[in-house]
């Protein structure tokens, strides 16, 4: 199973990537929404996208809205990664087509639990 990590911080991509790989995903990286769209165009839809909120060029919400317009996206679950201060935005994201959210900081177990709920487990 493949997961795409969309975050502008290399450190966060590494942290999230380590967790997802331990769970058994193959991971791909994108630094913002635009790069994520390009990745999808080249590699097809992954089973999971973990999307940060605040990114340059195209932020997380803009990405969710954009990607949900595209055909064939239904198979992809989207998990937003947010902080406490962005809690209000979670609703907007869920309304636009995100499936779940994770609040920073999170542990491997909490990620695994959410993924079980979503039904994406390798």
């Amino acid at each position: 199973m493949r997961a795409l990590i969309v975050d502008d911080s290399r450190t966060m991509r590494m942290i999230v990537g380590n967790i997802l790989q331990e769970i058994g995903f193959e991971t791909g990286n994108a630094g913002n929404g635009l790069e994520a769209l390009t990745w999808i165009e080249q590699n097809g839809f992954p089973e999971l996208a973990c999307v940060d909120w605040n990114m340059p060029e195209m932020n997380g919400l803009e990405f969710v809205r954009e990607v949900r317009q595209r055909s064939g996206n239904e198979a992809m679950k989207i998990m937003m990664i947010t902080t406490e201060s962005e809690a209000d935005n979670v609703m907007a994201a869920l309304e636009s087509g995100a499936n779940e959210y994770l609040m920073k900081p999170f542990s491997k177990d909490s990620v695994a639990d959410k993924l079980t709920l979503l039904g994406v487990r390798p």
Partner: protein
Amino acid sequence: MTDPLNEFFVESLENLDQYDADLLILEKTPNSPRTIASVFRTLHTIKGTCGFLALHKLEAIAHAGENLLVLIRDGTLPFTQGIATALLATGDAIRAIISELEANKREGDFDHSELIGTLVRLQNPESAPSAPSAPSAPSAPSAPSAPSAPSAPVHEAELPVTSKALDNTVRINVEVLDTLMNLVGELVLTRNQLVQLASTVQSGPLPAAAHRLSHITTELQDRMMKTRVQPIDTLWSKLPRTIRDLAHLCKKQVRLQTEGADTEMDRTIVDAIKDPMTHLLRNSVDHGIESPEVRKAAGKNPEGTILLRAFHAAGLVTIEIIDDGGGINVDRVKGRAIERKLITQETADKMHHKDLVNLIFLPGFSTAEAVSMVSGRGVGMDVVKTQIEKIGGIVDVNSEVGKGTTCRIKIPLTLAIIPVVIVGCCGERFAIPQTNLLEVIRLDQNLIIESVHETPVVRLRGSLLPVVVLQKVLKLQGERSTVRHLAVLHVGARHFGLVVDSIHEAEEIVVKPIGRALMSLSCFAGSTILGDGHVALILDIFGIGSLSNLFDVDHMPGLAHAEVERMEDSPESKTLTELLVFRVGGTRAALPLEMVHRLEEFPAKDVECCAGKEVIQYAGGILPLISVARALGLPETAADANIIQTIIYRHQENSIGLIIEGVEVIVKEAVELQTAGRRSGVLGSAIVGRRVTEFVDVSEIVRIYAPEFMQCSR
């Protein structure tokens, strides 16, 4: 896989550079949403990541800064100078914690409550109208925070678009590149050997293979060199912050512009010019740009401009620092140089305007008056010149009173592979860098070494050129050859001749660092392996000149004929020491400059008494004070009773303040210490600048008057 913690350090430090640059942009154009978003994102990312890495102090600071930025981003709070200062301080605090983490794996004992307090207070401007400025930063005289005055070109404010080539780029540790470069160097040397070997074979496949190897090696070397280049912007991008802080400190308004920031050069060169560049810039702000009032009165824009320009020309990199300040007053330079006995009145009268301006590079020219907080401990322009000449560069200054000053530095592109000429002396071979070599002349009956006041010179086209015999400098044993040659050399504007036995071929050589045992010898710059496998030492022309006392103050270009006499006292084997000369108790005293950590002035009323000792609060700690006059049994005098002048002396982690009457000058001299009449606290006396000067024994004074200082350092 890399450790997320390391990645976090690298990424955060990168982002903080952009963060600083963005804040400076916001000071000029406060309502740039993109820039505010970028600043916000940096702190937001750091805060968010801290939770995973259990870095609670860091998280608290980033969080406080983030909260303040939310208000600015949402438009509820205007961006002000005070906020900029506090946010810059936030960036510095984060950097400090990261470097502590890198070194000791701990967040350190910094107390950031004051900073966090300031950040919280700033969220509510009405409650504390005068408070909002971070601890150490005085607010600017006229804070240009009005959002309607974007006189600066707005293009500067545009954010650089994040690199699209992300996937095609690999980050490599510089050490890896250096190792590769070293290996390529070895390969070049082996190639040279093989090619020489192959040239003895006339037929067969060997010559062709060697030829091909030679080609590939040259190309590989060329490409390898290119991987180590960095744009000068890596250095320049850190400067706007320096300039801003400095301008605030000097109560001046300065705008920094750059041209040719993408000019590339070897990273060793970028490293090497960092200090001299920063020093020259500090000088431009401190002494060049006038205060806004003076500028207004002169009909200039109250905001001064410093332009940094870099470009490639003739295989060299030229860097110019151009300010539109008050310029250098030639008459004052002349006056001071004569007063300091650096030149005579007659010589000064004969000198051109340009040469007079360049007198500021003479050792001993910087005076106590020029020593300010900004210029640190007052190292002179001569140090800048020395640093640049060490890497084979030159520096000169042009100035017009009232219009400004231009400082021009020319430096080579790389230090790793240099063109040299191989010379022979007593059967050994040495390499002379081409950058130092002007011409090579055969010594015969038309050109003989004469002696003027026991100093060897030759008459070359009507002027006297001081001469150094390589055999003597290096104390080489061997047959003196019948035919000898003279290599005419220059270091910056200073010329001299070097007598050698023979001149061999010109070569491009790979510079190898010299063995540790030889490192202390100033006459060698490195070593290399020649085509035949022999090792040759690379001569350090500056070192040889200094060792022969050729670069003393009196040997300026054009002065050579007049003052050869100075060289009469033993031209060899004396090394120059940099000395800080100061007054204490009516006496002239000196200390080696390397023992001086800083020079500081304190208001006399700030001196406090603690356990029977005089102390003062300094840099967040308690600085013990010792009166040098009292220690030497001299009367305690001060030029100004309200101010105490101190030399900060550091021993390991501890500092102590030595109270003196005032600083006189910094000089470079060969010292001959007379220990007759030695007394407590004094090492002896010597003649410095033609006057008797006592040498203070700091360690003895400290041992007697502050024994606890030495103890706690163990």
